[in-house]
Structure formats: C-alpha cells, structure tokens
C-alpha cells in the first residue's frame, strides 16, 4: 500500500517552474530519501506535501487523504522536522514539547511520559525549564527533532534533520529513527545533503533536479544504472557538478538583494 502518492505535481512562481510534473509513490513503512542539489525543488515539494504551500497543479494523498480536500486528516497522519528553526524562543523546552503534544491530541499521561523520554533521549531533560532562546544551535536542533517525534505519526518528514548535529548525536538520531521505522512501521521521508547517510539508511532514493525526478530506485539500482560505486558519484553524474544558486524563501531573497546593494 502507498502511504504517499504524488501525482503530476507542478508548482510555478511567476515564470519560474520550481516543481515540474512530478509523480512518485512511497510505500507504507518505507525509508525514502529525496535528494537533489540546492534549488532543485526539494523544499518546495515538501512544503506542498505538508500543506504549507498549495500546488499549481497535481494531487497528493497522504495516508489516503487528499492534502487539499482534507488537509486536517492529512496533517494528522504526518509529522515533520523542519530544516529551518520553528521553535518558540520565549517558551521553555518542555513548554514547546507540551504545546506540540496538545496540538496533536496526545492524552496528558502519555504526553508527560513521552516528553520525558524524548527530552532524555536528546539530553535536554536537565534543561527542560530553560527558555529556548538560551539554547545553542545544536541544542535547538535536538529539541526540534525530539518535538517532531513526540506524536507517533504514520509518516515523518525529515528535512535535513541532522544539519548542524555532531557525529555522536547524529548516529544516536539515526538509530532511533531506524528503530521507529522497524517497530512502528513508520514511513520516513528524508531529504539530506549527506548522500552517504542516505545511501546508508534509505530503502529507496529519488533524485530531483530542475524540478523533475531524474532517477528513482534503491541505492544499488541507481549505482548499477550509472555504473558507479557510490550513491554520491551516481548523484553527481545525474545532476552534474556545477554549483547551484538556491532560490530560497522571499525573506532570504530580500536579504540577498540587500547584501548585494551594499557590497
């Protein structure tokens, strides 16, 4: 059974086509990696899949729920660890977790238990009553991950989850995720620039470039197809080695223009 179905997804911003007629499926319980260079359309695709952005054309279902027609049912089925910070700095670590637990209807007892378990897991339990604004970048990142795992959704989107984590925490997080994938049959949808990490953990990989999917299959299949020995080489062969300009959000575009003017 496919827990995620993406059919003919297109997203245009003015003349620019960020996602160009993309279709793919993810099976229930699969560990799926969605790779691509900067500006390839990864983030836009995830934003549409997670109902933050509406598509220009095409259709997505998550756990059988159309993300446009039944957004709340679709939202209930997934969790997400965002690439960018999304914590409330003026709340404590525990308050951020509790807030999330209430939004996702986790019963009180269970919520307390899981918050404690997860905060201990990311080693923030001792700091649970500190305001998030006092946290370092790595601590915030760990808290984001813990929060994304608080409710046990059927699908977890992980948008560059290990960005800015040290190798210890990273391996810790991967073990937890793989375990979740096995014991709860949670579907994991991952984007990352650590290609070797994806090769290591993912059942199946899709590579997107210029808004189109250029390859999809297991890491072995992609390597065989490109006659390369690592997924990283296959990735470079498929997407070329030139460096990309990221389109980014409106805010960062403005910032870039601002810096441009000054320099």
């Amino acid at each position, binding site marked *: 059974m496919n827990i995620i179905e993406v059919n003919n997804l297109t997203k245009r911003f003015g003349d620019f086509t960020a996602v160009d007629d993309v279709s793919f499926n993810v099976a229930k319980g699969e560990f799926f990696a969605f790779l691509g260079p900067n500006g390839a359309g990864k983030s836009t695709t995830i934003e549409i899949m997670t109902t933050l952005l509406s598509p220009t054309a095409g259709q997505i279902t998550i756990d059988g729920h159309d993300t446009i027609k039944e957004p*709340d049912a679709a939202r209930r089925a997934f969790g997400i660890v965002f690439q960018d910070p999304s914590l409330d700095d003026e709340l404590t670590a525990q308050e951020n977790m509790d807030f*999330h637990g209430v939004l996702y209807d986790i019963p009180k007892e269970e919520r307390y238990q899981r918050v404690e378990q997860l905060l201990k897991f990311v080693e923030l339990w001792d700091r649970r009553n500190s305001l998030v604004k006092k946290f370092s970048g790595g601590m915030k990142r760990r808290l984001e991950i813990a929060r994304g795992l608080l409710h046990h959704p059927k699908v977890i989107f992980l948008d560059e989850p290990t960005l800015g984590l040290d190798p210890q925490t990273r391996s810790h997080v991967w073990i937890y995720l793989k375990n979740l994938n096995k014991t709860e049959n949670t579907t994991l949808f991952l984007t990352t620039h650590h290609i070797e990490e994806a090769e290591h953990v993912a059942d199946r990989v899709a590579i997107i470039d210029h808004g189109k999917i250029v390859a999809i299959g297991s890491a072995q299949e992609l390597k065989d197809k490109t006659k390369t020995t690592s997924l990283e080489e296959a990735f470079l062969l498929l997407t070329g080695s030139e460096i990309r300009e990221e389109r980014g959000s*409106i*805010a960062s575009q403005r910032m870039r223009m601002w810096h441009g003017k000054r320099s």
Partner: protein
Amino acid sequence: MFKKIYILWLRQLKRYWRSKPRMIGSLGQPLLFLVALGYGMGSVFRQAGQGNYLNFLAPGVIGMAIIFTAIFSGIEIIWDRQFGFLKEVMVSPMSRLEIMIGRTLGGATVAFLQGVIVLLISMTVGFWPQNLVGVIPALGVMFLVALLFTALGIAIASPLNDMQGFQLIMNFLVMPLFFLSGALFPLQDAPEALSAIAAFDPLSYGVDAFRGLLIGSSHYGLGFDIVLLSGFTVLFIAIGSWLFSKIQI
C-alpha cells in the same frame, strides 16, 4: 478543540508575562499622555467650560493602550512566520479557524490587561470613575475593543511576509485611528469633517462607550456604541479568518 485554543491563548499570555521590558515600555506612552496632556491642557479645557480634562482624557488613553497592544499582538504573526513558529502551528491538525480564534483571544487578553493597567495608573494620577459600578461593564467593553483590534491586526498581517510594512501600519493606520477617534478631544464641538471621519473609526465608539460607563457622558449613546463595536468585531474576525486561511508559507 478548546484545549488547542487554550494552549494558543496560554502561549500568548506567557510571552506577554515574560517580556517585562515590552510590557513596561508600552505603559510609558499612555502615562506620558495622561501626565503631559491631562495636567498640561487641564486649565485650558476648564476655561473652555468643558470640565475636568483628565477625567475626559483617561478613557481615551485606555483606548490608546488597547488599540496599540491589540494591533501589535495581531501583527505578531509576522514574527511567528519569520522565526518559523507559524509553520509548526500550520502543519498541525488544527483548523485555520481554530488557530485564528486562539490567536485573537490571546492577543485580545493581553491588550485587555494592558488597558486594565492603564485604568489603574490613571486612577493613581487623579482620574476617578463617576460610579464604580460602571467599571464592570467598562471592562467588558474594553475586552470587546481589544478583540476588534486584534482581529484587525491579524487581518493586516496575514498577507505580509516581513516587518517592512510595520512603520506604514503604525503611521497610516494605528496613529490616525487613535488621533481621529475623539480620544483626545470632544467630538460634539469638533469641525464637521473631523466628526465625519471619526464616525468611521471603530475606536471612536470604544472610547465613547468607556466615557459613557466611566464618566457618564457619551456622544453617540452607549447602546449604539456597543452595537457598532460588536458589528466591527464580527466583521474583522471574519475578514481576518479569511485572510489567515489564505496564508502560504
């Protein structure tokens, strides 16, 4: 459903409580108005046969504290958007309407509290309500005005991506709403053009209702004030909810 609205509301109150500098800072301006204008213009006002200016002014300054805090609370969703927290709320299984209600109630409560503090401050510098029984319904109207302007703030902020429009909103919306509302001068003797403009300003009816309840003098009539305030509130909540539901991140 109520639990989710409650937690959104609670978050706003915690943020308010924790930002003491902001809380105190936003009391400076009303205090300045009360002292400088209330005392400074008092003798001129009395000579003009209008009675005690501080008593006339205090309800206006309460209105000022409420409108500034309420619109600012509504506009705070731009921060939530820039700092990413809005995404956390927007991907959760909570309808846009519930989010809008939670935020409006939270922002309105903060603005209401700010109004109450200004009421207490004005009572320490010489303002005294005509009869204390009127204070209770006045608190109700204060909350209504707070709701109205928080919803307006959210409606304005929903289509905006960053804080660049903030000065524009302050100078071309909040300031005119305040200065043209009759918060500082009596509307009955104002030039016709000015009273005509004031009639379109929701804050005019808010301040007028405060005066009706606190000092027993009302220009439009208390019933009329409350009907119009309720109408504006429903309208702004509807517009705000609609614009909020259109937000794309």
